[in-house]
């Protein structure tokens, strides 16, 4: 297997892009990534695009071909593949690109993610997102996506010492980071009181515990490490690419409050990279809800079960903390265009490792990305190193 490097990144602003179509979002992110990498369309050997539900959000399937076409690559006839694993679609698209390059099958590959969510109303998007869980036996009973994570939160708070205020601190910290990120959907700072006085969505989760509905796209260019120098002096190496699955339904999990797929993918990633937790300088985790960030930090092994709330409240996961988590603002403040999120996490880590993260820059040489599909039925973990 060959070593793989990221040589270019590009990300649209995340937010409600009423005036921009699905395909134009992708084209914008792709162009930014190619410009950053210093490659042209003719150089590209293959394209992988993460997308959860264009079929329902914009009534369009066959995304691989559409994207290649509007990126101006139709006449090159390159292979273009859509990858879907609900909210982990982006991370999985990146993993497919890494595998393609590592195997020697392809040399210059674009991994992208895109989601256009605001063309439907809130009720419809709540219904679509619920299909990341089990439609027949969770959705049928009236389970919403926030509802499932709320049941994780209730189980967790019943068993471990986590206060409602500590949970709110996750959102406060992520808004603080988002305020420093020019592509973030929310660039406003909030307080614990903002979270606790927002409306209940699914007890105990309130509006400010939840990531928003977002339009956005992100793209990265990956090449074999041995060729990276042809394009850039600031290539970032892919040190590990791991993936794990678990039961589709929350009710079938071994433990409601532990995402076993996060545990498994995390362990595999550390083993692949030959690294330990002490080597990781920053984390981008899947905080679709505040409780999800708490679980992620613990399930990846950065602290024991029941400790992440206290660590968050003490500032250990903030920008200047021991292990900065979600410097981008996370899904909460940066926004969560479902299929694009996993690629945006890679963009954020690359930008931090290159020292280009501006007002949210941390001192980091190695970063980890953690992307979750559903309530933990798919987890993708990557480790990147400068």
């Amino acid at each position, binding site marked *: 297997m060959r070593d793989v490097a990221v040589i270019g990144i590009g990300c649209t602003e995340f937010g409600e892009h009423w005036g921009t179509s699905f395909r134009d979002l992708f084209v914008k992110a792709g162009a930014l990534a190619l410009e950053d990498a210093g490659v042209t369309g003719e150089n590209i050997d293959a394209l992988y695009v993460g997308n959860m539900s264009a079929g329902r959000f914009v009534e369009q399937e066959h995304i691989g071909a559409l994207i290649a076409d509007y990126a101006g690559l139709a006449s090159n006839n390159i292979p273009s593949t859509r990858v879907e694993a609900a909210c982990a679609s982006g991370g999985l698209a990146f993993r497919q690109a890494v595998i393609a390059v590592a195997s020697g099958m392809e040399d210059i590959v674009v991994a992208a993610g895109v989601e256009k969510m605001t063309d439907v109303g809130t009720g419809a998007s709540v*219904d679509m997102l619920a299909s990341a869980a*089990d439609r027949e036996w969770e959705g049928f009973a009236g*389970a919403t996506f926030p509802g499932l994570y709320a049941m994780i939160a209730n*189980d967790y708070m019943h068993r471990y010492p986590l206060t409602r205020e500590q949970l709110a601190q996750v959102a406060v910290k992520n808004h603080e980071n988002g305020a420093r990120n020019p592509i973030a959907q929310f660039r406003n700072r909030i307080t614990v009181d903002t979270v606790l006085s927002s409306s209940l969505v699914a007890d105990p989760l309130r509006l400010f515990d939840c990531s928003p509905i977002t339009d956005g796209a992100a793209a990265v260019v990956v090449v074999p490490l041995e060729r990276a120098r042809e394009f850039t002096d600031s290539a970032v190496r892919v040190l590990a690419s791991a993936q794990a699955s678990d039961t589709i339904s929350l009710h079938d999990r071994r433990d409601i409050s532990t995402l076993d797929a996060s545990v498994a993918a995390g362990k595999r990633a550390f083993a692949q990279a030959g690294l330990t937790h002490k080597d990781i300088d920053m984390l981008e985790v899947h905080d679709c809800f505040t409780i999800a960030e708490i679980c992620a930090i613990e399930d990846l092994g950065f602290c024991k079960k029941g400790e992440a709330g206290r660590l968050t409240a003490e500032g250990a996961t903030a920008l200047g903390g021991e292990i900065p988590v979600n410097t981008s603002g996370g899904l909460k403040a940066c926004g969560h265009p479902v299929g694009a999120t996993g690629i945006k996490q890679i963009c954020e880590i690359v930008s931090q490792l290159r020292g280009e993260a501006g007002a949210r820059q941390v001192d980091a040489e190695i970063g980890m990305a953690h992307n979750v599909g559903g309530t933990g039925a798919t987890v993708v973990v990557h480790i990147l190193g400068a």
Partner: protein
Amino acid sequence: MSVSRFWRKIPQRYNLIGTECTTCGRYFFPPRSLCPDCRRSGKIVDHKFTGEGTVVTYTVIRSASDQFEHTTPYVLAVVELDEGPRLTTQVACTPEEATIGMRVRSVFRRVAADGESGTIHYGTKFVPVE
């Protein structure tokens, strides 16, 4: 949910009929046609559950999809049946009544409907045991 998709699971949804692997004795609800422990050597038969169980965790849904919006707030829970399997279900009680560890039993209820003139989805909900 399409009519045929709902119709084919009517016995399971109305009467809490799941499956049992007679090779290892494990029960499944929602029903499975393949035992994860015995796989192809497992023999799967139908099993009607008693409907008695315990709330493992719950939430109160305040904001729902269009199909359920008119019934908010409602209590959604993971219930562990006494035979072992767990399922996601509504508990017909007030938000204040719901607790983790609460004993519940199954009842036949209207769950949802496909719009004003579509199929009415009946199924199983749970109620607190007095």
